[in-house]
């Protein structure tokens, strides 16, 4: 499947460095947590979680994302996907806790929406540098309770997501879904392991993707050898026990890089 041509229909400035791009193609059958490969022609192709059936939400980081930020409505990029394994949907009546760090909120938003549509309860813990970087706060609030942590204390608990997490009653939740920067996920992972709730958790990982379709092996994690792009990006906490999570990842050449 060659990249399809996605034309930008609408752009929302979510925070100073984060924008949502709506496009003219709907991934009707996407699972929350799945990603697309976004081809910024002439530059690079990078993975992005779907923030909705027809949108990606992008943090400006480097070359490709900066180029994306230059695009206007009517401009287009290439899209392949949706790829990978998403989050496990809850059953009706279940209670779900979403733990989002930074752009990690992206795949959690459609997950929260799907959970509510099923009739589950979806509460969210959002962590960010400061209040202006809180992503999708309003949209998560419309779906359930929202807990907040900011590094600078400009809103909610001052500190990291894991600090805010300590005060929540984890026993009350049937499922816990986590996505955020690796260090944040690692500290959340430790806490959830400590609290013995790792069986009900899922984490959405990121690794360097080359092929994005499970063939090249660039994104495999140790020691299971599972592919983040195909067997993930969402893994159960159990799959990640004793894994490289929080320790190291591999760069584009395959060299191990400390987290």
């Amino acid at each position, binding site marked *: 499947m060659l990249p399809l041509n996605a034309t930008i229909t609408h752009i929302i400035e979510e925070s100073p460095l984060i924008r949502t791009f709506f496009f003219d193609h709907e991934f009707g059958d996407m699972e929350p947590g799945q990603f697309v490969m976004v081809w910024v022609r002439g530059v690079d*192709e*990078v993975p992005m979680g779907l923030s909705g059936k027809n949108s990606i939400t992008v943090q400006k980081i480097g070359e490709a994302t900066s180029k994306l930020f230059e695009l206007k409505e009517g401009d287009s990029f290439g899209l392949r996907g949706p790829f990978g394994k998403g989050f496990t949907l809850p059953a009706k009546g279940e209670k779900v806790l979403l733990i989002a760090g930074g752009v990690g909120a992206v795949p959690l938003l459609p997950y929260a929406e799907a959970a509510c549509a099923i009739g589950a309860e979806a509460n969210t813990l959002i962590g960010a540098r400061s209040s202006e970087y809180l992503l999708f706060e309003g949209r998560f609030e419309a779906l359930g309770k929202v807990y907040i942590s900011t590094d600078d204390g400009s809103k909610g608990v001052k500190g990291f997501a894991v600090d805010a997490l300590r005060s929540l009653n984890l026993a009350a939740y049937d499922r816990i879904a986590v996505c955020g920067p690796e260090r944040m996920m690692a500290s959340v992972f430790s806490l959830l392991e400590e609290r013995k709730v790792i069986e009900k958790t899922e984490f959405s990982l990121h690794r360097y993707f080359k092929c994005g379709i499970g063939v090249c092996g*660039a994104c495999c994690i140790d020691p299971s050898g599972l592919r983040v792009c195909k067997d993930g990006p969402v893994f159960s906490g159990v799959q990640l026990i004793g894994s490289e999570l929080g320790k190291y990842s591999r760069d584009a050449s395959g060299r191990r890089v400390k987290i």
Partner: protein
Amino acid sequence: MYTLTGLKLKNPAILAAGVLGTSGASLCRVVRVGRAGAVVTKSIGPLPKTGHPNPSMVKLDCGFLNAMGLPNPSYPDFLQELEFAKKNSDAPVIASIFGGTPSEFAEVAEGLLPAKPDAFELNVSCPHAEGYGAAIGSNPCIVEAVTAAVKDVVNVPVWVKLTPNVSDIASIGNAAESGGANAVVAINTVKGMAIDIESGYPVLGNRSGGLSGKAVKPVAVKCIYDLYTALEIPVIGVGGVSSWEDAVEMMMAGAAAVQVGSAVYDRVDIFSEISTGIEAFLKRKGYSDIKKIIGLAHEMV
């Protein structure tokens, strides 16, 4: 048990180079979960390379196009992966290596020797890496020199992986044999390209790349057939194998074993499926031994 250039394989379906071969853990998973008879690593070179920009692999209607650009951490950094693979896998692990000159090949091979790979596979066939791969592999003299250089420094079997992008693959196979190769592997990808018509951009970050998967199977079968006729050493077949039937077809063309690359896209346990399928086929047709079908097509006239 099945012997190939002295290596003991549980079955003749081998993981191809550059596919799920970036880490030791991934190689082990292909043996453990996929039941591969042996695994070949990603091609490793003298220096770290990040490879070409993405998109580096796309699925086509027929097959796949890729231009990874030989990304690899270089042999010093890959040692730990190879060691992990050797320690945690009960199948042979073959180190695929590349270089720009015979001495670079030898350097990389020697550098990986401490991890005790079961064999080396020389990549003289990647179609989209300037100065490497097919740039070398379409010249018989260089192929012979590269093979001889590696043979000189290692005491395990050396396989030479050939490119189909030549007018006469048998002459390249002959050169590898003269250089002392214990087997040839055919084929690497076929030069190819795709263009995004909405924008006019070539789809691959490297503009062009190599075709693999179903599209190239007939090309591979023909190359294997010709190599089997021309060479004494075993031919290992690769290119578009995605079922046990494909594997049997390649063996009948002359392949002593097959490698599977792109087809892991559909399922990692393709290796076990192939080996079970071959067994059942041999039984149904009353062949006493897998050797009976290797090169069979040459006898049917």
